[in-house]
């Protein structure tokens, strides 16, 4: 009776028996449904989260070391500066110069000065990030040049008032006309627009997921030569925050060092640290190594997967026990039926097959519904919580497979118990 049509008949029979108690079968499936659904949903959310984290880190560049100026704690600032409320900290032009000349394995050293200010054209005013930097910025951060050109060495040496802007900024400033060769105003200075760029990573993102980001100030960047940023804005930068002015004396906000390859990163980090420690009296910088972050993210993901695996195992165990419980009750309830079938020629293994098929139908049915709900939940989460979720095929297969396995494992005992009843004892059962 192991041929295919017979199994099909047995499955049909199993479904019939389960339909005899619809509510009970449904409730029994709930355990499996929740188990499978939570596994898929959690995997999807975890996968999406780690994908986003990895994208964010990759955007920093896995060959790069990033050094950022950070404002030290308040007490130091007051002490160090005679003038009130001017904080004096951060990376210097000479830091960048030293790295350029002494750091082993450094391909490019890219200094940046980042100023928050409004960019104006006619009556349009858009709050933006003004980034004073070198021509290698485009290559290192992976900018797409949409029109015109990026900064050149010429701009830098001549301290030319030219600028390149992101497409999103251009769209806001120039809704009705071509931005190229127009002049925009920042503070009291005018800059000629020579190019339009788009950040590569914002193209990478899937359209649905990136849509809410695209209008944010983060993408409103205006790139100018570093020499301009230095001379036009002066040493002291003013920052309007929550109604009060803040002044700070910062030369460079960030230095990105691009290494020849990833192997050069690890030895370079302590060198940079030593160099900075030597020239900075306070810790007014931080060193970010995207590669290390990436490894950490991977490690975190592994831990997450282990935790998830345990939760999944527990919830399916609970579901499985629920199934076993019901099947034992069913076997007791249907003892007489078992006796009748045995009297009519069923072998032990026919009875085992029958009950096992019933549990597997129950658990696979639960698995199937669980998969359906499990696919839906991440969609709802990413719709309402604005989180990226990724449903992988392997997570569906895993959850569904485990639910089937649960049915078999927890079905064997009740089925064997049913089969081992002596026919006559089973028939005499009331």
């Amino acid at each position, binding site marked *: 009776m192991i041929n295919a049509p017979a199994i099909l008949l047995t499955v049909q029979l199993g479904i*019939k028996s389960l339909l005899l108690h619809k509510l009970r079968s449904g409730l029994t499936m709930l355990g499996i449904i929740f188990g499978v659904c939570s596994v898929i949903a959690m995997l999807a959310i975890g996968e999406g989260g780690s994908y986003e984290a990895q994208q964010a880190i990759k955007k920093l560049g896995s060959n790069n070391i990033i050094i950022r100026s950070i404002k030290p704690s308040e007490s130091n600032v007051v002490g160090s500066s005679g003038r009130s409320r001017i904080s004096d900290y951060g990376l210097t032009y000479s830091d960048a110069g030293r790295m350029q000349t002494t750091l082993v394995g450094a391909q490019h050293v890219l200094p940046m000065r980042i100023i928050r200010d409004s960019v104006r054209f006619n009556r349009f005013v858009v709050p933006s990030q003004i980034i004073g930097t070198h021509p290698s910025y485009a290559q290192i951060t992976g900018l797409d040049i949409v029109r015109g050109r990026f900064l050149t060495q010429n701009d830098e040496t001549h301290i030319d008032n030219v600028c390149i802007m992101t497409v999103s900024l251009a769209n806001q400033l120039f809704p009705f006309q071509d931005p190229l060769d127009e002049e925009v105003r920042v503070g009291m200075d005018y800059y000629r627009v020579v190019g339009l760029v788009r950040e590569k990573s914002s193209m990478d993102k899937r359209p649905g997921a990136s849509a809410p980001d695209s209008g944010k100030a983060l993408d409103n960047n205006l790139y100018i030569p570093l020499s301009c940023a230095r001379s036009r804005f002066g040493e002291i930068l003013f920052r309007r925050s929550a109604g009060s002015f803040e002044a700070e004396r910062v030369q460079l906000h960030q230095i990105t060092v691009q290494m020849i390859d990833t192997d050069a990163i690890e030895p370079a980090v302590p060198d940079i640290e030593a160099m900075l420690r030597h020239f900075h009296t306070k810790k007014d910088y931080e060193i970010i190594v995207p590669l290390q972050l990436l490894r950490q993210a991977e490690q975190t993901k592994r831990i997450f997967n282990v935790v998830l695996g345990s939760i999944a195992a527990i919830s399916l165990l609970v579901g499985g026990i629920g199934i076993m419980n019901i099947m034992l009750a069913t076997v007791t309830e249907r003892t007489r039926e078992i*006796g*009748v079938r*045995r*009297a009519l*020629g069923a*072998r032990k293994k026919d009875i085992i097959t029958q009950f096992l098929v019933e549990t597997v139908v129950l658990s696979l049915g639960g698995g199937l519904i669980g998969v359906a709900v499990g696919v839906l939940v991440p969609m709802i989460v990413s719709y309402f919580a604005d989180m990226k979720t990724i449903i992988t095929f392997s997570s569906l297969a895993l959850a569904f497979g485990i639910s089937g396995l649960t049915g078999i494992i927890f079905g064997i005992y009740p089925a064997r118990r049913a089969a081992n009843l002596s026919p006559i004892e089973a028939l005499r059962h009331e």
Partner: protein
Amino acid sequence: MSSSPIIRLEGLEKTYDLGAIKVRALRGVSLDIQAGSYVAIMGPSGSGKSTMLNMLGCLDRPSGGAYYLGGEDVSKMDDDELSAVRGKRLGFIFQSYNLIDQLTVIENIHVPLFYQGRDINECYDHCVNLAKLVGLGDRLHHRPKELSGGQQQRVAIARSLVNDPLMILADEPTGNLDSATGTEILNLLDKLNAEGKTIVLVTHGEEVAERAHRVLHMKDGVIDHEIHQRTLQHVVEELEHDDTAEAPAP
């Protein structure tokens, strides 16, 4: 009637071991049953009638003695072989019908063939014919719960015939039915016997037993005495025999 018996019991014993006490339900029963005969087993409650029928039906194993069914020693068979014997060579009718609730009439009739690996589509006509034979041709897709007791028992009879068994075993088949319905069922059994089926039936009722060729009276696990009855049919047959072949006795 052929001379080789389809059933031969030799000193069959069955003891139920209940730990503290041992119940000797059968204490050495020896018996031959010829093919085509109609045997009724009677006796007081607890005399071992059901135990005996269960032995004959290969539902239980004897504690001692030998049981030959169609010449084969049943007591030496393993569980799967016993299942095969029940499925291929025996038909059962129970007092409480014992149909399977979730199956329809036609599916219930098919169950023994299902365990012989035969698909319902391939033997559908056969099952329908049996349903018609027991007068349920118009109830094929009803479920047991939708049928009266008599109708359910007729389904059970059709089911017992579906595998064309050597012998039909019935334990008080009319016990749960009113007398009119019981009579219908017994008429059906008579008809089957007339067509050549061997029937062994346990009963309490004298009028039921009257239909059988042989009535075995059991008492305390043994056959106390046996009555050979002459049915009307036998009398006619014998008369014909007398006319053609035998001279009157001196």
